[in-house]
């Protein structure tokens, strides 16, 4: 597609439920990133996929968070047993290679845990 597409754009869930957030990167982009942006905070790195290499999961805050990327394209971020502190905007970005000037961000999924 023309840009990075994220769905849903908004998600309200009850504490303790599982949620899945989806990211469709730009076609041909080999790198895909997930970041989290909490109110008044900067972007927090979560996970990074590059081609067929093992993902860099160093930013995942707990084992309730996981992500996969199928066929080198679409990615799903899963949060199990959601907590109120998980409320944030989850941003996905893709790029042709490493480095920030190739990043194209999606508009994000705003997650609210009630």
């Amino acid at each position, binding site marked *: 597609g023309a840009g990075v597409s994220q769905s849903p754009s908004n998600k309200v869930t009850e504490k303790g439920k599982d949620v899945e957030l989806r990211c469709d990167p730009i076609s041909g982009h080999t790198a895909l990133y997930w970041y989290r942006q909490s109110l008044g905070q*900067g972007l927090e790195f979560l996970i990074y996929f590059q081609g067929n290499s093992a993902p860099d999961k160093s930013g995942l805050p707990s084992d309730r968070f996981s992500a996969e990327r199928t066929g080198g394209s679409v990615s799903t971020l899963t949060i199990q047993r959601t907590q109120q502190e998980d409320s944030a905007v989850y941003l996905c970005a893709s790029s042709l290679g490493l480095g*920030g000037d190739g990043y194209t961000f999606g508009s994000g999924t705003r997650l609210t845990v009630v």
Partner: protein
Amino acid sequence: EDQVTQSPEALRLQEGESSSLNCSYTVSGLRGLFWYRQDPGKGPEFLFTLYSAGEEKEKERLKATLTKKESFLHITAPKPEDSATYLCAAHGSGNTGKLIFGQGTTLQVKP
């Protein structure tokens, strides 16, 4: 630990009133310093990349500069449409492809 700090957190300017945003960084082996613009409800939009101290880049009313410890985003004669949050991010040698972001500066330009 790699860190990026932006100041001020918020800035209000009158249209035409020039100013600068600051980004201080502590990153091992800086590979790039990036500036993004973020409008409400949208993802960040790329503005500039700076790679070495002394480098400068310009785009319309914006100019970004880089030293060994900080970067500045200079805004000359801003217009209301320049109102947004400006994010600074650093790419270090040990960070693979990930960027370390500052908390951003929210700029409001009043007509």
